[in-house]
């Protein structure tokens, strides 16, 4: 008689890891991007671009490495996050390369070819993803660095104040011999870590110790402290760095996380009121912000007079000229926007050359990333993971809304970049890190519970022995 020691009644059924789905989707994403790249070359020069092989191989390599690392270190991760990010990154590269080819764009004083740099930063971004997944075995480790995160984030936010303004916004720091960095992009992630850690600890105090007033739960004065501090900070950023987008992003993200942590609607009402007060008061004495609002209200009225209006009008005309199906890649004139056409305004190129259809597809891809992030938050088993996931995906959603809404004239334009699509090293890097953290949380969330260890005592209680 054989002695079988496996006495557990229920064996752990291996949950599907969905890694093969992810691989297929990554291949698909790379294929679409390479096709877009070839399309640009054919439209502009009538031949396949010479750099196509290198570009395709590079992108395939990045996608492949990222996939293998996910397979190795985050086996149960969400299968959609990586392919979606790869698709946007690849499409962004094709669009940036397309704008690099524009003669009109090349004639600008500020012109520097951006595609190769973007590819380099995409590689560094994927390296960041690899590092995050390899080093950060569990997202809860981040919880230990709650207050350090706060200090680092504030430091990063304040840093650009000491550097000269670039194009009216003080969001850049210049590192000699390296280039420029946008620390706000990284601060966004780091401050989410702080919020998550802080709120996880304070959520009960914030939620329960409140007075009821006119049907709303008002927080106590001492609990109001942190939210006031963040509010003040975002206003200060707005005033000193004239960065409307980032302050809106931080404040929105904090309100979202506060609401999730406390489940109190009053925080949202409170947050909206405060942001309204902040926005109105800043808009009344900050000319930079006023210009943007004027440009938003009637873009064409300021043609030839106000730079911001003209830029906005050009963006709208690019969208309008694209129509339903677009002109086709490489055949539009979105480069007429000139300055920032490949960064803040890259969506205008999507709109003009890929049309309403392409634009909706891209917006839905962003929507899907957000959806996977929220789903990760729902599935996460620990409050810190939930808060971190919703913070990251919420800020991602707000950023997409603020940028896309801005270039489409839905809201006043703010200087922020479209995640993954737009040219900008810091942005690509930070967004790959963001995706890495979401992948890590989703892996933890979807990982099947470990099988109970076989108990030696169980044998004693079993009556029938095999």
């Amino acid at each position, binding site marked *: 008689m054989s002695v079988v020691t496996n006495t557990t009644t229920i064996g752990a059924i291996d949950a599907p890891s969905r890694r093969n789905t992810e691989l297929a989707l990554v291949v698909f994403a790379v294929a679409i991007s390479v096709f877009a790249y070839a399309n640009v070359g054919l439209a502009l020069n009538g031949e396949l671009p010479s750099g196509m092989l290198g570009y395709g191989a590079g992108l395939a390599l990045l996608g492949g490495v990222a996939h293998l690392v996910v397979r190795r270190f985050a086996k149960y991760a969400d299968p959609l996050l990586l392919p979606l990010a790869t698709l946007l990154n690849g499409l962004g590269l094709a669009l940036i390369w397309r704008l690099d080819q524009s003669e009109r764009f090349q004639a600008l004083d500020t012109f520097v070819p951006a595609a190769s740099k973007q590819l380099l930063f995409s590689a560094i971004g994927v390296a960041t993803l690899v590092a995050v997944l390899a080093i950060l075995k569990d997202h809860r480790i981040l919880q230990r660095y709650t207050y350090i995160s706060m200090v680092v984030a504030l430091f990063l936010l304040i840093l650009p104040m000491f550097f000269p303004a670039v194009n009216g916004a003080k969001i850049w720091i210049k590192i000699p011999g390296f280039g420029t960095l946008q620390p706000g992009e990284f601060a966004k992630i780091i401050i989410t870590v702080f919020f998550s850690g802080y709120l996880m600890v304070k959520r009960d105090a914030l939620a329960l110790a409140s007075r009821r007033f006119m049907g709303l739960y008002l927080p106590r004065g001492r609990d109001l402290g942190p939210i006031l501090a963040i509010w003040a900070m975002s206003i200060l950023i707005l005033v000193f760095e004239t960065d409307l987008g980032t302050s809106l992003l931080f404040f929105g993200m904090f309100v979202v996380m506060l*609401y*999730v942590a406390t489940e109190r609607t009053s925080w949202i009402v409170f947050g909206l009121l405060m942001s309204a007060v902040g926005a109105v008061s800043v808009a009344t004495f900050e000319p930079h912000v006023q210009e943007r609002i004027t440009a938003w209200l009637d873009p064409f009225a300021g043609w030839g007079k106000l730079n911001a209006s003209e830029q906005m009008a050009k963006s709208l005309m690019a969208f309008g*000229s694209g129509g339903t199906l677009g002109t086709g890649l490489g055949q539009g004139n979105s480069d007429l926007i000139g300055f920032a056409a490949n960064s803040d305004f890259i969506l205008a190129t999507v709109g003009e050359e890929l049309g309403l259809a392409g634009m909706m597809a891209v917006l839905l891809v962003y929507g899907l990333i957000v959806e996977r992030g929220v789903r990760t938050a*729902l599935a996460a088993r620990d409050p810190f993971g939930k808060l971190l996931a919703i913070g990251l995906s919420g800020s991602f*959603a707000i950023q997409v809304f603020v940028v896309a*809404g801005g270039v489409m004239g839905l809201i006043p334009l703010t200087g922020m970049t479209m995640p993954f699509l737009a040219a900008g090293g810091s942005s690509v890097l930070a967004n790959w890190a963001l995706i890495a953290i979401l992948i890590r949380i989703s892996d933890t969330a979807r990982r099947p519970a470990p099988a109970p260890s076989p108990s030696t005592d169980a044998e004693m209680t079993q009556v029938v022995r095999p």
Partner: protein
Amino acid sequence: MNKPLRRIAIFCGILVLSLLIRDNWLQYVRADELNSHKYNRRVEIERYAHERGDIIVDGKAITGSVETEDGDFRYKRVWKDGPLWAPVTGYSSQAFDSSQLENLEDGILTGNDDQLFFDRTLSMFTGEKKRGGNIVTTLNGDAQKAAFKGLGRKKGAVVALDPKSGAILALASTPSYDPSVFAGNSLKDSDNRQELLKDEDKPMLNRALRETYPPGSTFKVVTAAAALENGLYDDIDAKTESPLPWTLPQSTTELRNEGDIPCENATLREALRVSCNTVFGKMSDDLGNKKMIEQTEKFGFNKEVFTPVRADASVYPEDNRPQNAMAGIGQASNRTTPLQMAMVASAIANDGKLMQPYMVAERQAPNLDPVYTHEPEELSRALSGENAQKVQQLMETVVKDGTGTNARIPGVTVGGKTGTAQHGLNNSEKPYAWFISYAKTDSGSPVAVAVVVEDGNANRDDISGGGLAAPIARDVMKAVIDSKK
């Protein structure tokens, strides 16, 4: 914590949804408006993205379209002989818009006109390269060259019409300009245009259509026509009641004739032959301002003319008696365009029927199929056939043995009238030399011409309609007759 998470999920969904709705609003609902917005440079880019159609004279293109390397406008307009044709075509510049035919027929020339919709749709399927359609004009190359040669370096204008149809055969204005020099989009184009605009001789002014001159004695044929039409006189060889000297009504000023010419009670034939101011001044006064206006309006005065290029209205205004008498000999407030006087000559030559002047004979689709062909139309009945023939006799006498002998063409009946119009304060400035005429062959009249020369360089006494303007008119008429052989 999952309930607020779900709500945040809905919030994020609303954010994305609002972006999608906004995108549909921009790219579907407002797409056309934004695509054709006046600030949208794509409209211009598209305009110059294809070869522009040509303007055609005598079956040959007088314009062209060349590919340029600089800037985002691909094709640029060129002219085979710019100064010769600028008064007809106008200009078409990438930087400075367009004028005249280039402007009015832009839809056909760019290929965007609705008339070419079918053609465009078809070429979408055949994959043919987009190209503009052509404009076939009525102009006669030889006549146009003769007009420019005659005017030479002098300032002036020539208009030649086909009296039977109203077709414009020559349309010259000097000094002219070459529209090619600012057809592009460069700084040099801009400088060239500035130079043309600053030129005191106004080369870009179309004197044939957009400048009004006092018509001087050439207007006497209109006064004669009015007298016949209103029954003031009936027989052109009967004596008129014309005292000499004659004092302007309500005034003490005597109206003088040029020199000592036999004008007392002169017959109409004689009065026109030697160009009597007194006879026609009194005639205008006898008819009165109202009747004179009526007659001039039958010839097309006081109204803009569209050829389709717009020509300024010639003016015969309401005025007091002495002024009306002066206007009757083409002075005072009477001002006409060269086109108007050509219309007068052509109505008389066409037995009283004034045809609508036009210069576009046909619009062609890019594949050369006509999409529009002009049908000659009568603008008005200026005078009865009988009276028209009487005025013809008067004008033919002028050329045969009057002031217009310089316009004679062997073997062809020519009728004409000279004019030397005073202008400036107290007539201090150099006068304008005028000549209007028509030629007649067995098959009716093939051409009527009006010539005006404003020559600042000529000796004052040498300036006369018969001396300066008549030879030009003769050469233009001859060119038309010869080209028909």
